[in-house]
């Protein structure tokens, strides 16, 4: 472990390299381009390759292809490019492909404000593409978090054979902070489970007890089938309700069952509070000093930071919020996580206090947003 000074985007790049990234596909887009540029310089010395493709659609599909050839793959983009990747994410879900997709949120909709951050893409990160599925979404709030959550994103992708969305934003992407980076061997790096049976007995989509099928890749003699249509355990197209039900149930359940591993939240003074503020990402960065200032004045306020935006461990979240008389959700949008928290904690005591800004949230505006409800 050693101390470094990096930007959010560079931290993601460095953590990806540590996790074993060998293939990066991308397309220039503010504020994610510098992540690709940094990797383009560094990744070849680790035996990896960075390719700028003709568009984001090619990027996500190439990343998925590379994953099927047996390497860890990633792409990073922002709102407009993320929207283009929708079908690709759907393909990764259906084919159970480990791949990491970074969305560095900016102001939208459409071209929006490319250089400034909001928290608009929460639901898109969860449900970008068509289809009935659940994928993990992580939201860092610091450069250290970018680093740690990237390692976690790759591990979750490999462990559960799923695309993972890492939801950063334009503020965090380009801010510079000190962080601790890991040396190889210091943290657990998870690789996809491989088959334990010979090719004649292998069924590409037959799950293990954890609902995740072991993943043979191209070139190993297993004659794998990557199938975008609804399929049975052999990967053969099936159009009947039984197969569909089983496939959809398993794809969702394998993630939900892993919520204990996937979900993380951070609690500050929550056990001792009448009101708890819930926030994530760059908004949370300003909620923390606001809550701390209020506590210093004697207010019994707590702060719960969501590190994982999906799936939510509703039981854990509820327990953390159960003692508070008020739950105040502060986010930089017109209400996303607020709707989940209101449902889980109860809408009678949950209040939505947006801080809508394209500049890094100011202390006074966040203080006003919190204090208004106290």
């Amino acid at each position: 472990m050693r101390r470094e000074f990096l930007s959010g985007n560079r931290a993601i790049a460095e953590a990806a390299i540590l996790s074993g990234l060998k293939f990066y596909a991308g397309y220039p887009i503010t504020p994610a381009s510098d992540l690709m540029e940094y990797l383009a310089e560094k990744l070849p010395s680790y035996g990896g390759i960075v390719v700028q493709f003709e568009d984001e659609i090619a990027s996500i599909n190439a990343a998925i292809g590379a994953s099927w050839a047996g390497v860890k793959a990633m792409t990073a983009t922002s709102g407009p490019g993320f929207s283009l990747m929708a079908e690709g994410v759907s393909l990764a879900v259906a084919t159970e492909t480990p791949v990491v997709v970074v969305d560095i949120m900016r102001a939208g909709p459409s071209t929006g404000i490319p250089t400034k951050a909001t928290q608009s893409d929460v639901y898109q990160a969860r449900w970008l593409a068509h289809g009935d599925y659940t994928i993990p979404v992580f939201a860092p709030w610091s450069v250290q978090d970018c680093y740690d959550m990237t390692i976690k994103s790759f591990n979750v992708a490999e462990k559960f054979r799923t695309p993972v969305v890492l939801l950063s934003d334009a503020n965090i992407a380009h801010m510079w902070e000190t962080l601790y980076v890991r040396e190889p061997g210091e943290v657990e790096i998870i690789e996809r489970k491989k088959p334990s049976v010979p090719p004649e007995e292998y069924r590409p989509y037959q799950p293990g007890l954890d609902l995740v099928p072991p993943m043979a890749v191209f070139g190993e003699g297993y004659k794998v089938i990557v199938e975008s249509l609804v399929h049975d355990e052999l990967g053969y197209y099936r159009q009947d309700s039984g197969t569909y039900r089983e496939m959809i149930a398993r794809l969702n359940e394998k993630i939900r069952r892993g919520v204990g591993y996937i979900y993380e939240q951070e609690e500050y003074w929550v056990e001792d509070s009448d009101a708890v503020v819930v926030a994530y990402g760059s908004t949370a960065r300003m909620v923390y000093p606001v809550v701390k200032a209020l506590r210093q004045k004697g207010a019994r306020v707590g702060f719960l930071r969501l590190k994982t935006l999906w799936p939510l461990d509703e039981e854990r979240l509820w327990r953390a919020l159960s003692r508070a008389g008020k739950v105040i959700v502060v986010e930089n949008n017109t209400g996303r996580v607020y709707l989940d928290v209101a449902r889980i904690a109860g809408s009678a005591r949950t209040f939505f206090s947006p801080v809508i800004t394209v500049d890094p949230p100011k202390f006074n505006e966040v203080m006003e947003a919190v204090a208004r409800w106290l």
Partner: protein
Amino acid sequence: MALAKLTLHPLDKYLRTDRLPHIWCPGCGIGIALGAMLRAIDRRINEGKLDRNKVVFVTGIGCSARVSFYVDFDSAHTLHGRAIPFATGVKLANPSLEVIVVGGDGDIAGIGGNHLLHAAKRNMDLFVVMITNFVYAMTGGQLAPTTPLKVYTTTTPHGNPEPPLNVVKLVASLNANYVARASITTPHYIEMFTYKALGMRGFRFLEVISTCPEVYGRHIGLRNPVTMFEELKKRVKYKPNPVIDESDIDWEKGIVIGEYVVRNNPSYLDLVKRG
């Protein structure tokens, strides 16, 4: 599939025989193209030039794309138009794989057009087979980029107002190492060109003109498989060194098949020094 595989036909060893008979219509040329390709692959495997476990078929969506169902190799049935970028990721991640993309003219040159363009420009190390039937058959007969002018399709019921795209000409104008056209009416060329392409580096493109009696044949009044086959055969002319100026597909003037471009420009793998 734990049971021993049924093998009768000499190519059955490369087919998932438990999925036969395949879904293609009576008289559809895709099976002919696939058979010819498999014969070429078989020859290369027997000559020790190709590892059977390294062959990967990547397809998009459409009738031609269903090839990935039936081949007993690693295969991927991916998104409509996106087989080429998927295949690019596969090849770059593991350059020892022999990656073959198969798709229809709509999949490869319509929705996939931009990817085709850039893969050819890069001279990406892929072998792409585009099976042209001039229509979107899987979805019922809509306009395709190659549909000739004035032809009826379900989305141009008053006649196609768009001049067609000459995909061979497009790819030949880019940086591809191999651009050829064949027809299912003379399958030997499909086999020859596949054999040759599999021994080359860079972007290798083969257009295979095919019969589609059920859909395109119906649109142009050639519903009977043998009739459509014979009408196509009449118009196909092989030339040993065709020039691009004669590559336009013209149902009146004829369709020239042959190897339009054969060269050895540095491939993308050469340029990134990777395999």
